[in-house]
């Protein structure tokens, strides 16, 4: 029996082993070497350097800059994205909403679009002189903002694009969460005389906690891996204000070909995401208990 089970598992496990564990292990080993452009030509030019890459990384101001930018993106963009997708889910799921079948795909559409194509359109929206966004702001008497060229505004611009691009996915999950809330709970609340806001606070929110935490973790993991938006829109500029950890890793690895250093960045990011996920999972346990009491 056992042998048969293993036999059946091999086709699934082998690719995971070959294409996931081995590369990850190789990258981990790589992070302790100084594999670089010289080594690319000749393997003998690589050396084991112990934890030097990691030490150097923690001394690199660019790494801390990228770290700061990434946390900015995660801490501002993440909650914003969850809030927007929750509000949209509530709106779309509301009994008062007509044409639900229309709104759901419309809001989901940005998720399935290609980022590169969308980024081109958004670059026009953000254009300091001809952009639609500045045109709209001019009616409010706000001076034109150089969205992608100003170190202060570049990250908010990236966050806005990414929230717009991603909220549809979370919205669908929230809708599923909302629909799984038993109608009787609302009926009971109404009998007790709860108004709409009290129903939302007393029924919807607590019942959505598991969904929200799931969405939170997924969004956080995705947001820590911010890459494509700044890569396409700003290349990390202006003055490194949109340089993310993954973009730094990409630049070190593929522009300068410092693969050892780049692998070290990857594992630091891995550790951060792991820690973030554990904290959120711990949070889930605690709130899970508190909502039951």
């Amino acid at each position, binding site marked *: 029996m056992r042998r048969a089970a293993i036999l059946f598992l091999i086709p699934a496990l082998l690719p995971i082993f070959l294409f996931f564990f081995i590369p990850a292990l190789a990258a981990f080993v790589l992070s302790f070497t100084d594999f670089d452009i010289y080594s690319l030509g000749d393997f003998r030019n690589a050396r084991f350097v112990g934890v030097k890459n990691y030490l150097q990384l923690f001394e690199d101001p660019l790494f801390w800059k990228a770290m700061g930018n990434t946390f900015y993106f995660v801490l501002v963009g993440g909650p914003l994205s969850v809030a927007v997708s929750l509000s949209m889910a509530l709106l779309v799921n509301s009994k008062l909403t007509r044409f639900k079948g229309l709104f759901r795909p419309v809001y989901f559409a940005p998720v399935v679009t290609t980022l590169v194509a969308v980024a081109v359109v958004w670059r026009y929206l953000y254009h300091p002189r001809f952009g639609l966004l500045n045109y709209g702001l001019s009616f409010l008497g706000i001076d034109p903002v150089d969205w992608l060229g100003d170190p202060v505004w570049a990250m908010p611009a990236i966050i806005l694009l990414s929230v717009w691009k991603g909220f549809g996915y979370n919205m669908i999950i929230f809708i599923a969460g909302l629909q799984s809330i038993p109608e009787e709970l609302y009926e009971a609340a109404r009998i007790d005389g709860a108004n709409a806001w009290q129903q939302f606070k007393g029924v919807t929110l607590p019942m959505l906690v598991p969904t929200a935490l799931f969405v939170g973790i997924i969004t956080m993991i995705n947001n820590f891996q911010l890459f494509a938006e700044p890569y396409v829109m700003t290349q990390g500029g202006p003055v490194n204000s949109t340089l993310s950890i993954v973009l730094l890793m990409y630049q070190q690895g*593929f522009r300068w070909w410092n693969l050892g250093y780049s692998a070290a960045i990857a594992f630091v990011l891995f550790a951060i995401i792991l820690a973030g996920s554990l904290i959120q999972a711990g949070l889930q346990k605690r709130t899970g208990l508190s909502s039951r009491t």
Partner: protein
Amino acid sequence: MRSLHAEIVRTLLVPVFFIAFVAAGCGSDRSGAVTVTFWAMGNEGEHVQRLVPGFEERHPGIKVKVQQIPWTAAHEKLLTAFAGNSLPDACQLGNTWVPEFTLLDALENLDRWTDESAVVDPDDYFSGIWETNVIGRSVYGIPWYVDTRLLYYRSDLLAEAGYTAPPRTWEEWHDVSVKLRERSGGEERYAMFLPTNEWVPFVVAGLQGGSTLLRDEGRYGDFSGSEFSSSFKFLMSFYREKLAPVGITRVTSIYQGMAEGYFAMYITGPWNIGEFSRRFPKELQDSWMTAPMPGPDTTYPGISLAGGSSLVLFQHSERKAETWKFIEYLSEPQQQLAFYTITGNLPARLEAWKDTVLAKNRYVRAFYEQLNRVVPTPKIPEWEQITMKIQQYAEAASRETMSVEEALAALDRDVDRILEKRRWMMERADRD
């Protein structure tokens, strides 16, 4: 049941046939012609296609496939292709990248090819530019178009400040800048735009001051050495005396900034001839000019950088003879002129410069003078990384978050760290 079976077989086989077909299409096509693949970057990649039909007409047995690569991704793409063994036959390569790819042993030594060539004549190139392609004693790239940096200036504003001719020495350069600033009255106006996200002026000034930038055969940085630091201080005086704006965000468009007279001088390259002609208002078209770099002493013009792109042949290519023919074709003076007309890229061949098209353009004259006094940047693969550090510390020094001495000492420290691997390899080579 059988039809389903057939369906599955067909769906599986179609991609296989497709792949086989595409694979067969590479290298030689059905007519037996040899296909040469050529990678070119950005604007050049877009326009070089127009020269291809002429070549294919002359060589019916050879087809050329041009692949366009954006400049921003070019370096990554080439290195990745090298690692993945999927380089083309030939490529346009920024001449500062030639040392790196030579070190990887990716480039064909072109000595033999140029010796036998009736077209490529090393004496018909700017010697400073040719030199950038020589590693050790051999040549690894043929200059395609040339590039250097020099002074663009508002001739009307300089005339108002008492300079009917552009500054020729650092002293005049500084003097005209002070006069330009005084002319502005209380308004916020500057003489120069010297953005710290462009490393070239800082390196050019250092080279002009006699610095070699690196010392001990490129083992250590030499930026805190007296030659570089005095040149660096000279450029920093432009920020300190409010002759140049600090920070790059003050100027959103250099064309608009210069047209408004926000600044009157800017160091940049040949591509801006076209941009200035297009973007400057009509009434100001006679009010801008180009001039070679001023120098620290009376030798004029001062040194500038030998830039541009070269044509390289990759060692692994199986179609070297055909590929070389294409490189030769692009190196012909007539093709160089045609390419200049399409793109505005300055030709590498001296022969081409004799043509009236170039002689008529008054803005390119300064480039011709400057190109006769150009030197290469250090020929080490780490150079690109070093330039990023130069920018970083130039910015810090310009904002006075660091003193000049602190900034240059920190720059040397960072550069020495970048060069650590190189030192280790050189030591090992000495031991063996």
